[in-house]
């Protein structure tokens, strides 16, 4: 079945034709310094790839040929060949890269370097560093506007979402959000930018044109202390109607209505749920549970957890090849 990975486009075609879906998910295990490969056909780990130290942010390249993984303690981003499932190269990030985002064409990579308050700009084809942007303290969350004009970086200790013009690489606006912003996600129609605040316990909904917080999503779980509710990862369906928000040590995923910004349901998953990825058909959502060392599979339509898969130690990020 690895042969399918040689032709990612074909793999997606096969997947689209079969209801069960056959996608490949890559999970970064922060503490065991590995990446687990999950086959979504039978929900099983098929390979564990040794990578550098402290792997966190992980993404497929737009062409589906490579998986990029930020190995913070080695101060680089490693390149995994999706066909051979081996580390083949590394990219010149700044110190302690954590999360990154690509432009729509997959040519430019923007990396948040947690340790030196910069966002590094990397040319993905030449694999060279082409620039830096100074941002706030402990940059982490990264998002790019659907039109590619604005790059968002959130800084964990400055508590801001920085709006960076991708053409000039200058900060054009800073929006103050609640404490420890971790993750940023645009609605596909650009109408809203969502930023999760881990310690503040909220998700700020920002008007990207006006640079203003227009709403705050709050969470309340009976019997759960307020401090344990720590939103981190955000996953939104393409139509922008439903969002899934990982609540960290609250061990739950909140399902939020995209229009009303109200929580409609909480799903119990593993311990310290962190990041997530949809299968391309949006039938399933895979979420990483850092403390229980597993990945929960959520049936998106039924809004139910259907399975848990054991992976490495402290699973952090997850990516699935898009067709």
């Amino acid at each position, binding site marked *: 079945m690895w042969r399918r990975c040689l032709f990612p486009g074909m793999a997606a075609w096969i997947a689209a034709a079969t209801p069960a879906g056959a996608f490949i998910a890559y999970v970064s295990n922060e503490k065991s310094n590995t990446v687990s490969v999950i086959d979504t056909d039978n929900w099983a780990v098929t390979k564990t790839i040794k990578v550098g130290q402290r792997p966190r942010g992980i993404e497929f390249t737009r062409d589906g040929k490579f998986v990029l993984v930020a190995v913070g303690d080695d101060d680089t981003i490693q390149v995994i060949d999706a066909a051979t499932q081996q580390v083949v190269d590394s990219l010149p990030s700044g110190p302690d890269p954590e999360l990154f985002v690509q432009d729509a064409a997959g040519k430019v990579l923007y990396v948040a370097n947690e*340790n030196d308050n910069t966002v590094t700009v990397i040319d993905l084809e030449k694999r060279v560093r082409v620039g830096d942007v100074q941002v706030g303290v*402990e940059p982490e969350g990264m998002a790019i506007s659907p039109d590619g004009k604005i790059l968002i970086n959130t800084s*964990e200790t400055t*508590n801001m979402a920085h709006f960076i013009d991708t053409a000039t690489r200058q900060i054009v606006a800073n929006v*103050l959000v609640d*404490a420890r912003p971790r993750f940023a996600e645009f609605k596909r129609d650009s109408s809203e930018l969502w930023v999760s605040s881990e310690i*503040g316990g909220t998700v700020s909904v920002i008007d990207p044109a006006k640079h203003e917080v227009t709403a705050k999503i709050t969470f309340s779980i009976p019997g759960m202390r307020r401090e344990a509710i*720590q939103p981190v990862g955000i996953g939104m369906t393409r139509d922008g109607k439903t969002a899934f928000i990982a609540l960290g040590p609250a061990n739950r995923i909140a399902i939020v209505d995209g229009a009303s910004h109200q929580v409609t349901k909480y799903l119990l998953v593993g311990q310290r749920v962190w990041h997530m990825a949809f299968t391309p058909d949006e039938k399933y959502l895979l979420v990483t549970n850092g403390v229980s060392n597993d990945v929960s599979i959520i049936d998106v339509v039924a809004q139910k957890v259907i399975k848990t898969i054991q992976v490495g130690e402290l699973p952090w990020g997850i990516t699935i090849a898009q067709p």
Partner: protein
Amino acid sequence: MLVVGSHEEDKLFAEALRRAASRFGAKIVQERVFEDTGGARRTDSGVTLIQRQMPVFTQQAPAYDILVAADESEVFAPYLPYRTWDPRLVAGSAGLVPKSWDAAQDQWGAVQMQNRFLKLNSRRMTALDMQAWTAARMIGEAASRTNSGDPKPALDFLKGPDFSIAAFKGQRLTLRDWNLQLRQPILLVDGRMVVSVSPQEGFLHQVSELDTLGLDRPETKCRLH
């Protein structure tokens, strides 16, 4: 067993330990006082003498599970572990030590903070450093949230219900409105590692589990003016 130093600060720490013992259901079976006779005559003569001092000091104790030392001046407590007459655990001013911060703390993003501090100061970060950082950060937080450099709105914000701060402790920290003490988790450290973080799981509270530590609202005699 509780061993208390002879200094004023030691007595205050001992009082806090007695209160905590009664609150959490621990029984102090005996108390002893370690007199600081000055010049460290009893402890300053090297391993050979200390090796004799501590077993002698702790012998003939009633049955106990853990020896807790109140020695804020660091006169004797560091010599207690491994030298008690009965082989027992040591906590308090030595052994398992409760602290607001420790250089070994690396959870919840703290490793970035520790690295920045080490790079800046060429030494590891102490609890006092963290308290100073948190205090400065609180002022910065108040200034950025109120979008003002004036002390009045900043102070109102700090005392208000919306104030909270992230300080690498895994949860937001807030101020107790009855005495403006910072509500924060306490690290239990052994000198090399963070052994555990209190409040311990299972100790519940109707407002905040952090209020299981220290003086809670119904117990306090503080009145803010």
